[in-house]
């Protein structure tokens, strides 16, 4: 009898806890953004940030930003959504404040948490001006009224409230702030690498819950979407593999490695649709920071 009481009390508490978690609001509502955006700069950020690479289905010849190729992970298959300004299928009805919350906090306009396949954790330090620029750039993309398919995520990972617990346990703040005594290119590289270009999303291993293991930052990962794997990109590992700053900057431009081979896997896509569009100065900044060299 006593045991039964205990069990039912525990079950009651658990249910209450679950209700609390489901009701628990995540993120915060950003202050209104009234800045004028520069669409050219926003497009540049959208290249650097991988928006265009990931949310366009290049293999199928899909229209820009109308939804990307599926990401097959051990948690299920994720379909990067349509980010065009379609009111029915994309972001056409969003406000810039909702956009800011989605990008910087990973929270949808209806308050749901995004899955961390969307690397919002890296975008948390984007300024209001960055957001306004991105928002202006997205306005220039032709609307496509076909929504991306729903994610195919089996139980229990389809329970989005679980992501609130995930956020509480695992959400690291990006370390993009400049470091005193380091050169401008190094600090610019840090802003890019730790933030918008989110190198760690693929080059840092993830734990059983799909969160990055920060103690093993940039040591490479072997369970990427599509059973892809990534090499280590710590300064030591890069140097050991013969990478110089020039070689690395050039590889980010061309996809060509020092031995004449070209990148495949996810990195081929990153270069083709992302870093090849950056300035030489930014590619050198990325290489400077990754190799931890002086400017």
């Amino acid at each position: 009898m006593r045991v039964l009481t205990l069990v039912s009390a525990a079950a009651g508490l658990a249910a209450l806890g679950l209700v609390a978690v489901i009701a628990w609001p995540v993120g915060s509502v950003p202050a209104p953004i009234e800045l004028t955006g520069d669409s050219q700069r926003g497009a540049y950020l959208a290249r650097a940030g991988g928006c265009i690479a990931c949310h366009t289905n290049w293999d199928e010849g899909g229209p820009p930003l109308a939804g990307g190729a599926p990401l097959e992970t051990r948690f299920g298959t994720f379909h990067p959504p349509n980010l065009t300004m379609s009111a029915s299928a994309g972001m056409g009805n969003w406000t810039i404040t909702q956009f800011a919350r989605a990008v910087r906090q990973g929270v949808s306009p209806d308050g749901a948490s995004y899955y961390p396949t969307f690397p919002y954790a890296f975008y948390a330090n984007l300024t209001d001006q960055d957001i306004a620029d991105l928002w202006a750039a997205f306005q220039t993309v032709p609307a496509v009224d076909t929504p991306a398919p729903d994610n195919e995520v089996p139980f229990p990972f389809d329970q989005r409230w679980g992501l609130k617990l995930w956020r509480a346990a695992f959400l690291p703040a990006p370390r993009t702030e400049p470091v005193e005594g380091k050169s401008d290119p190094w600090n610019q590289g840090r802003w890019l690498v730790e933030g918008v270009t989110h190198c760690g999303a693929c080059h840092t291993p993830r734990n059983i819950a799909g969160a990055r293991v920060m103690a093993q930052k940039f040591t490479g990962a072997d369970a990427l979407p599509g059973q892809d794997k990534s090499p280590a990109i710590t300064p030591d590992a890069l140097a050991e593999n013969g990478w110089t700053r020039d070689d690395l900057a050039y590889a980010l431009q061309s996809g060509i490695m020092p031995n004449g081979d070209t990148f495949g896997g996810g990195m081929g896509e990153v270069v083709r649709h992302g870093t090849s569009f950056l300035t030489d100065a930014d590619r050198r900044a990325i290489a400077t920071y990754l190799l931890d060299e002086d400017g």
Partner: protein
Amino acid sequence: MKIHTILAAATAAAIATTAIAHEGATGIVLERMKAMSAMREAVKEMTPMMRGQVQYDADAVRAAAQTIESHAGQAMIELFPEDASREKSYAKDALWQDFDRFADLAMQLETQTRGLALAAANGLGGDQGGSGGMMGTSSMMGQDTSAMMGGASGDTLSAEALADMPADAVFEKVSQTCSACHTPYRTKPE
């Protein structure tokens, strides 16, 4: 006699090295690995010239481009028959599931390297700034948001159109095509 022994040993060593490098691949799989290696060497030869690290040599670029062209197009497609052994191969099943697209990329590589051979005499484009060459035609350079936001990239230009471009801009298209094919269809060597 001694010379013969040394030569034989050297030959054996060379064969062994090749076999190790290709991890025991044989037949058509070994053939395509050799073709890929030849193309890699051609890219490696051109790269320092395209980067301005060594003196640009139009004849060398033309020859290297022709080497790649000879392994591209139909020659490449024929090295990937559906029924070939997939053991000891870096090719993913996706290549055969999506064969038309693979074949398009192989043909695109042929067109682009023919264009590069024609453009070799044009030399380098000089300081055109970061993303210019890769955004397609020069009119799109830095100005057109639609190209920056994922619009048309000019990957399907004819060899004759490419022939008018700076060699390094065509070279970049070639390398993008290599990577575009390696991205979905090649597994990582290690």
